[in-house]
C-alpha cells in the first residue's frame, strides 16, 4: 500500500487506530519525493530527519494513549513564503535564498499543535508574484499531468506535491488566486478563506490587504480538516477576525438540496476557453441534478478587476518588499559603496524580473500626484466590487464560476507577456478584492488537462462552499483520478 496516496481523513484514522504508524506515512511520502521530485520540482527544501523524529513522537504518544490532535502524524507541505522557525524560508527568491526565520508563522504552530508534520517547503513564484511558478529562483515546478506544462501559481509547488502524492496536505497562500489557480491546474482542492479567518502572522507579505493562507488537499474533507486546524483569531494579526475555533468538517454531508447557486454571467464572457466553459456549465447542471437551485446572476465591473487588483497588489508590494536590503538578513550583494549603493546592488541582484516590475509599478502608483489617480481610485473600485458580491450573495448561497479561464499552458509559453499573464487572473482576483471565501474543486479534464470549478461564498461562508464542493466531488469523483508520472 502506498500510504502517501491516501487522504488525511483516512490516514488519521489508521494512525490513531495504530494500523499504520505516522513514521511509515512519513517514510512513504519521502520515498515518493525521492522517486518523482527530480521531475516535478515541487519542493525548495525538505526536512526528512526532523519529520521522521516528529512522526515517531506522535506514534509514541498514541502508544501511550495520550491525546493527539486533528492532524496527528499527517505530512504537510508548506509554501515557502510561510515562516518556519529554524528552517529555510525563501519565498522562491534569491533575496531570501539563505533566510532562516527566527520564528514560526501562527499557522505552522497550529498545524504542529494539531500533530501535523511539516515535511518541507514548496516551490512558488518569487514572492508569490505569478500564476505559473515560473518566476521561482529555484526553477519552475512541473505540472504532474503534463510535465511540459506549468502547475499554476503561485502555490504551484504545493499543488503539484499533492497531485504527485509527495505530501498528504499542503498550505498555500492566495493573494489573487495563488491557491485556486494551481489547485485548478493540478486537479486538487484549494480554498482561499475569508479575509481575516486565518492568521497572516508569518506569511511573508506580498499584498497584505488581499491575501490569506489557505488549505490545499486531495479532497474536500481534507481541505476542511486543514482549515479547521489553521482558522481562528490570532492576537498577533490585527486584521484577524475575532472568531472562535470551528469544525469545518461538521457541515459536510453531501446534501445540497435547495442550496441556491448563482452563476454570474460575466465570468463566462470573452477570453474563456470554450472547453473550460463547457466543463463548468456541465458542473452547474450536476449541481442542479443534486438538488441545488441554480440561477443566473451578475457581478458588474468585472472588466476592471484585473487593473484594480494589480494596482493595489503592486502598491502594497512596493512597500512590503522595501525591507529586503541585505542589512539584517537575506542576500547581500558584494559591493563596496555606501548604504545606498549596497541597497541598490542587493535589490538589483536579489530580485527577479517580475518582482522588480511590480515594485516599480507599485512605487509609481503611490507617488505624489498619482496616488489619487491610481491607488485611491483602485480602492474605490474595490469597494464597488465588494458590493457586487454582497448583492449577489444576498440572493444566492454560493456563486460558481470557472477558476481559471484557460487550461494549464506550456512552460515558457506566456511568461514573456505579463499582460496576458495578468489577464488570466480575471476569475480569481475579484474574490480577493471582495474578501470573500472561494474554493476550487476538480471539475473534469479536457485532453487530459484538469479544469477547476470555483465555488464562492459570502463572508465567513466557508461551510457552504465546502458543502457544495463536497457534494459535487462525491458525485463526480474527479479527485480520484491520478496522473502517471
Amino acid at each position, binding site marked *: 500500500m502506498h500510504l502517501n496516496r491516501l487522504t488525511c481523513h483516512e490516514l488519521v484514522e489508521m494512525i490513531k487506530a495504530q494500523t499504520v504508524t505516522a513514521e511509515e506515512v512519513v517514510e512513504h511520502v519521502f520515498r515518493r519525493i525521492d522517486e518523482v521530485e527530480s521531475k516535478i520540482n515541487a519542493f525548495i527544501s525538505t526536512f526528512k530527519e526532523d519529520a521522521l523524529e516528529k512522526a515517531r513522537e506522535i506514534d509514541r504518544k498514541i502508544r501511550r494513549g495520550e491525546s493527539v490532535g486533528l492532524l496527528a502524524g499527517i505530512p504537510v507541505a508548506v509554501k515557502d513564503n510561510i515562516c518556519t522557525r529554524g528552517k529555510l*524560508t525563501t519565498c522562491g527568491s534569491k533575496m531570501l535564498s539563505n533566510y532562516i526565520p527566527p520564528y514560526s508563522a501562527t499557522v505552522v504552530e497550529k498545524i504542529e499543535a494539531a500533530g501535523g508534520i511539516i515535511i518541507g517547503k514548496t516551490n512558488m513564484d518569487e514572492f508569490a508574484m505569478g500564476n505559473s511558478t515560473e518566476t521561482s529562483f529555484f526553477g519552475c515546478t512541473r505540472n504532474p499531468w503534463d510535465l511540459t506544462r506549468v502547475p499554476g501559481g503561485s502555490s504551484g509547488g504545493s499543488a503539484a506535491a499533492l497531485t504527485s502524492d509527495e505530501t498528504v496536505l499542503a498550505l498555500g497562500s492566495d493573494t489573487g488566486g495563488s491557491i485556486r489557480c494551481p489547485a485548478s491546474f493540478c486537479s486538487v482542492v484549494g480554498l482561499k478563506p475569508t479575509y481575516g479567518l486565518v492568521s497572516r502572522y508569518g506569511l511573508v507579505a506580498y499584498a497584505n490587504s488581499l491575501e490569506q493562507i489557505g488549505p490545499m488537499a486531495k479532497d474536500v474533507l481534507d481541505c476542511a480538516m486543514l482549515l479547521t486546524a489553521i482558522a481562528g483569531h490570532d492576537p498577533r494579526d490585527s486584521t484577524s477576525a475575532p472568531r472562535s475555533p470551528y469544525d469545518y468538517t461538521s457541515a459536510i454531508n453531501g446534501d445540497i438540496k435547495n442550496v441556491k447557486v448563482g452563476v454570474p454571467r460575466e465570468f463566462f464572457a470573452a477570453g474563456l476557453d470554450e472547453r473550460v466553459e463547457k466543463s463548468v456549465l456541465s458542473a452547474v447542471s450536476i449541481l442542479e441534478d443534486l438538488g441545488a437551485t441554480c440561477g443566473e446572476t451578475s457581478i458588474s465591473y468585472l472588466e476592471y478587476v484585473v487593473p484594480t487588483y494589480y494596482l493595489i497588489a503592486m502598491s502594497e508590494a512596493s512597500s512590503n518588499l522595501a*525591507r529586503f536590503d541585505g542589512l539584517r538578513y537575506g542576500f547581500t550583494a558584494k559591493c563596496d559603496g555606501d548604504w545606498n549603493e549596497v541597497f541598490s546592488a542587493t535589490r538589483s541582484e536579489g530580485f527577479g524580473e517580475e518582482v522588480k516590475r511590480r515594485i516599480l509599478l507599485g512605487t509609481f502608483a503611490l507617488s505624489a500626484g498619482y496616488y489619487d489617480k491610481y491607488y485611491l481610485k483602485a480602492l474605490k473600485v474595490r469597494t464597488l466590487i465588494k458590493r457586487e458580491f454582497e448583492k449577489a450573495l444576498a440572493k444566492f448561497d454560493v456563486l460558481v464560476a470557472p477558476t481559471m479561464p484557460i487550461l494549464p499552458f506550456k512552460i515558457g509559453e506566456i511568461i514573456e507577456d505579463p499582460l496576458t499573464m495578468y489577464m488570466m487572473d480575471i476569475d480569481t482576483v475579484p474574490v480577493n478584492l471582495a474578501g470573500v471565501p472561494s474554493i476550487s474543486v476538480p471539475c473534469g479534464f479536457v485532453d487530459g488537462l484538469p479544469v477547476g470549478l470555483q465555488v464562492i461564498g459570502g463572508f465567513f461562508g466557508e461551510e457552504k462552499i465546502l458543502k457544495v464542493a463536497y457534494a459535487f466531488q462525491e458525485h463526480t469523483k474527479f479527485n480520484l483520478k491520478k496522473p502517471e508520472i
Partner: protein
Amino acid sequence: MPIERSEELGVKIGLEVHVQLTALKTKLFCSCSANYRGMPPNTLTCPICLGHPGTLPVLNRKAVEHAMMVALALNSSISPQMFFFRKNYFYVDLPKNFQISQYDKAGGAPLSTGGWVEFSVNGERKKVRIRRIQLEEDPARLTYPGTITSAPYTLVDFNRAGVALLEIVTEPDMETPEEAYFFLQKLRSILEHLGVSSENMQGSMRCDANISIMGGARVEIKNISSFRDVRRALQYEIMRQKQLLRRGGVTKQETRHWDEDRQITVSLRVKETESDYRYFPEPDLVPVKIPEEWVSKVASQMPELPDARKERFISDYGIPEYDAIVLTSSKKIADFFEECCKLYSNPKKIANWIMSDLLRNINETGMDVTEMSITAEQFIEMIKMIDEGLISGKIAKRVLRESIRTGRPPRIVVEDEGLLKISDENVISKLADEVFREFPKAVEDARRDRKAVNFLVGQVMKKTRGRADPDVTNKVILSKLEENRAIPSRS
C-alpha cells in the same frame, strides 16, 4: 533677544517636536522593552521590530492612552477614529524601509488636531497653536565613529527601533528664539507632569524647527537635541538669513542640519528631490476607534498639570504669580519646592532661594535641573543655617554654588571650608581693632558720617571671608567708634 527686534524681521518659527513615550513598558508595535537606555546595542529586539518578513505590528493600546493624555493637555481634539499610514523611504535606521506613522491627508486622521499651549515669556503671555499630534515608531539609533561626515562606517542599534514616538507639530506662531525656548520648556513641564516621558528627557525629546524671515522661504533645521540648542540654532539661523538678505541674497527652501559641535547650521546637500514618502494606509493595522468614553476615562485620570499647579502654588503658598510660573516650569523644581515647604514652612524664602540661587547656579553649570543632586533636606538644612545665624546669606550663596558644582551637600561644604558664621564679639572686636589701625582715615570719616561705617564693617567681613555676623560686627564697630571718640588720632 540680542539681535534685533524680531517683529521687524517678520520671523516665523514653527516646531516639530518628537517625544518618546518612555513611560511605556513596551514598544509601539511589539512587546520588546522600550527602556533601552544603558542597554547593550541590539539586545531589545524581536522579529517584529527588526522588520523580519512575515511579522505584523500589534498596536500598544497604552501608547494610545499616553498620547491621548498629551493631546488633552495641549487642548487638541482627539480623532474619533485614527489611522496608521506607511511613510516609505529607504534609510539604514528603518528596519522595514518604511515607518509606521500617521497622516492627515489622503483620508487619514492622526491622533489629534488643533490645540494650543499657553506660556509666559519674560512676564508676557504667549499662545502657540498646535497643528496636530501623531503617533509613530522611532527608527533605530545610528552611531558614527568620529563625525557623521568622516566616519568610515555606521553602527545601527535597533533597541530604539519601534519605541513609541509622539510627533507634536505647531503652527509657525513663534517670533523669537526665546519664545521657542519657553514653548519647549512649557511643553516639557506638561509632559513631565503627565508622566508619559522619563524625567531626564535627554534624548527622549528631539526637535526640528522651521523658520522663515520676511516672508522668505521656509528653512528646516534638523537634529537639534537640546532646548538650549533650539535657541542657539534659531539665533544662528536668523543671523545667517539676515546677512544673506542684507547682501541681496534669497533664502531657499532647504533642510539644514544643526552641527552641535560647531554650533552652526549646515546645508545637507542631500540629492533627494522633493521628498515623496508615498504615504498609504498601513494594511496590517485596522483603524483605531477612540470613542468618547475612552477619552473621558483617560481625562479622568489626568494628573495635575503645570497651570493648575501654578494656581495652587499662588493660593496655597502665597507666592507671587511670577514665582509660581518659574517654579512650575519644571516638574522636578516644582516637586522640590513642595518638598522643601513640607520640611520648613517658609515658602517665600524657599521660593527666593530656589529661583535666585539654585536655578541660576544650575544654569551656569550648563546642567539640566533633572541632573541636580541636592535634596530638599539638604537645601532646607542650609536655609535653616541662615535663619539660625550659623551662616550669613552671603556665605550661603557661596555654599550653594559650591554644592551644585561639586555635588557635595551644603552642610559638608560649610564644615569642610570652615564657613560657620562668626558671632563671637571678642573675635570680631579683635578684628575691628586691626581694621581701626589699618584705616585711621576711615575711622575719622565714620565718626562724622555714619554712612562710612559700612566701609569698616566691610573690612571686617573681608578679613573673615564674609563669615562675620554683620549685625554683631556693626554693633561692635559702633561701640568702638563711641569708645574711641576721646582718643585723639595718631595722625
